[in-house]
């Protein structure tokens, strides 16, 4: 069931996920969403009872937009440095402080190189979402390095908990808190409105191919094979308990050609996080009662559920 409408306020709106958005230079195509399109988008959201998330570009919006933007309850995703945001996005490694959740978009190389600074940031932001922008390029050596990186980050998270703080790092703490899949929901619970007035599964689908829309404001939504965006129709994911995995529909299609099938790399990365979360949960509990309602995360003998497919039936 649809719950969220992401509205890209400009073609150069900041990326808050795996995909790359066009740069903010006027040359590369700043295209502001027309005011009337924005009004219609908001109206659509109201009629469908959707929660609206505006994604801002790295330049100021004209004054006349403010009144329209404020005509409905919403949250604001903005590039780091802007004020009045609900979520701030840092593109490329940069050590920041903030009073709102921060999305840190980094490559694996950046993460491995700056893991100590990332660990330090946990005390300076209420929540840190690390988004790896090159998951599909992970090699066996990268998996090893990532495992080590997660272990070190987990040690820091544990220390902060012992000190009475409650750091949030999506890679490690989400899985400890979850009791079911918590995926991004693109195409299922969330859709995106682009500046051209068309709907897309998520911003990445818009940037990859504008013709790949799932409807428009004039004719409404038309999501073909919409069941394939649901967990029950994802043969690998529905057998998986790496519940923190974003299950990126766009990366799925990019790497396997199917929106419901993740790549080996995405599965292994998610399982390394899952296993690190398991260790972290056990280690924190050694210091006292912690999340007593949550079950232990089970020991498993695989990193890619695909390898266990013979046991599914």
């Amino acid at each position, binding site marked *: 069931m649809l719950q969220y409408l992401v509205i890209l306020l400009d073609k150069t709106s900041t990326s808050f996920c795996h995909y790359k958005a066009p740069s903010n230079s006027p040359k590369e195509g700043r295209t502001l969403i027309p005011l009337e399109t924005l009004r219609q988008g908001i109206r659509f959201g109201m009629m469908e009872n959707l929660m609206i998330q505006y994604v801002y570009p790295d330049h100021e919006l004209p004054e006349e937009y403010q009144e329209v933007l404020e005509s409905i309850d919403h949250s604001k995703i903005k590039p780091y440095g802007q004020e009045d945001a609900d979520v701030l996005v840092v593109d490329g490694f940069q050590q920041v402080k903030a009073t709102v959740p921060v999305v840190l978009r980094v490559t694996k190389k950046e993460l491995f190189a700056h893991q100590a600074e990332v660990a330090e940031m946990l005390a300076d932001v209420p929540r840190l979402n690390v988004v790896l922008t090159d998951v599909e390029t992970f090699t066996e050596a990268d998996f090893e390095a990532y495992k080590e990186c997660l272990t070190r980050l987990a040690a820091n998270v544990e220390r902060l908990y012992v000190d009475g703080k409650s750091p949030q790092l999506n890679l490690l703490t989400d899985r400890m808190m979850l009791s079911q899949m918590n995926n991004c929901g693109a195409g299922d619970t969330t859709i995106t409105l682009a500046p051209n007035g068309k709907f897309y599964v998520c911003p990445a689908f818009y940037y990859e191919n504008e013709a790949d829309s799932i409807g428009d404001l004039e004719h409404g939504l038309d999501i*073909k094979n919409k069941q394939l965006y649901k967990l029950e129709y994802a043969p690998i994911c529905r057998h998986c308990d790496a519940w923190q995995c974003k299950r990126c529909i766009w990366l799925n299609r990019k790497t*396997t*050609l*199917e929106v*419901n099938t993740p790549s*080996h790399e995405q599965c292994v990365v998610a399982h390394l996080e899952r296993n690190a979360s398991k260790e972290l949960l056990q280690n924190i509990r050694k210091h006292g009662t912690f999340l007593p309602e949550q079950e232990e995360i089970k020991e498993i003998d695989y990193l890619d559920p695909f390898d266990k*497919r013979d046991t599914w*039936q």
Partner: protein
Amino acid sequence: MVNKKESLVYEAAGQWKDGAAKNITFIVTKDCQLACKYCYLVGKNTKERMSWDVAKRSIDYILDHKEYFSEESVIWDFIGGEPFLEIDLIDKICDYLKMEMFRRNHHWFNSYRFSFSTNGINYHTDKVQNFIKKNAGHVSIGITIDGTKRKHDLNRIWKTKEGFSPKPEEEKGSYEDVVKNIPLWLEQFPNGGTKVTISSADIPFIKESVLHLYSLGIHEVNINVVFEDVWKDGDDKLFEEQLMQLADAIIDNKYYLGNTCSFFSDSIGKPLDKDLDNRNWCGAGRMLSIDAAGNFYPCTRFAAYSLRSKKPIIIGNVKDGINKNLLRPFLTLDRTTQSPQECIDCEVASGCAWCQGENYDAADTSTVYQRATAICKMHKARVRANNYYWNKLYRKLEMEGQREEFEKNKKKSNDVIC
């Protein structure tokens, strides 16, 4: 009478591990002498012929990567177009395969089969015959003959000298050119089966065609309706009537002794459990197809020349190898995930086939996870006639006290999928 010792049937191969075989297909040419009206190969041409270099590099890649090809046995399949147009290349490929499997002490050595599906036109030629003799014991050949002359010639027509489909008034059927080779084929492959394809226009000729094939000495008739959306209103009724007449003829004339027709199977037409009977129908992704450009496909039906409206799905090539991520959707496909609710709830679901390539080609989005249902009415008609066939046959056998004996010796008919 065929002397069994001289028979060249592939079953002579002692090490064959049936059911555990990898199917590897060389698309040696996209050319064919015929322009069959129901052919799903929409992009046939004379230009895309496999080179020896591509064939050799493919073989080297496959034999170098035992970890991807762990099946106990292998079927080296050659298709086209018409594969025997490239008999020289095929001969060279097979010689190299045998030599390399031996040299590498590969687990497929002596557990392999060379398989062909041919239009039969060149079957008698010296080159094809020499190949068959040279590879005796490891060859499987199916000749496609569609039934009576009028049924066969309705669809299986020669293309023009220029290589195009002829105008209706210039159509020339290929029946006579094929049927003349059937005795030689049956002499060499006494258990040879043929594959018959039924499109809308063929329905009135089903009964006569199956019986005609039996009369030619072909005891195994593998027959299926095309998966494409070609069916007209009323076709299901006509189809049902033809199958009922065929059922009467087979039973009344005792053709059920020693012959099979895949339309009749006592396992079809039952509901399927959504958990226990959830396997995918076809083997796309478990096989490997290679084309003239050296591209790899999960099945031939995903090559460009097979697709009407979608891009090909290329899962690798001879240079870079197989991209295993692109195989994941195929290897995790199951029945219920790709089926609409109507199919999941269907009370006569068993035996209702699908072709993964046609599913992909006909899908609303670029996915293999949307089952095409164009044959729904035809399957239901088949089930009704099939029920009639088995009820009538079993009653007759019971009355004659022969049911137990029949069940014991019954030949299993094959489900035809493509």
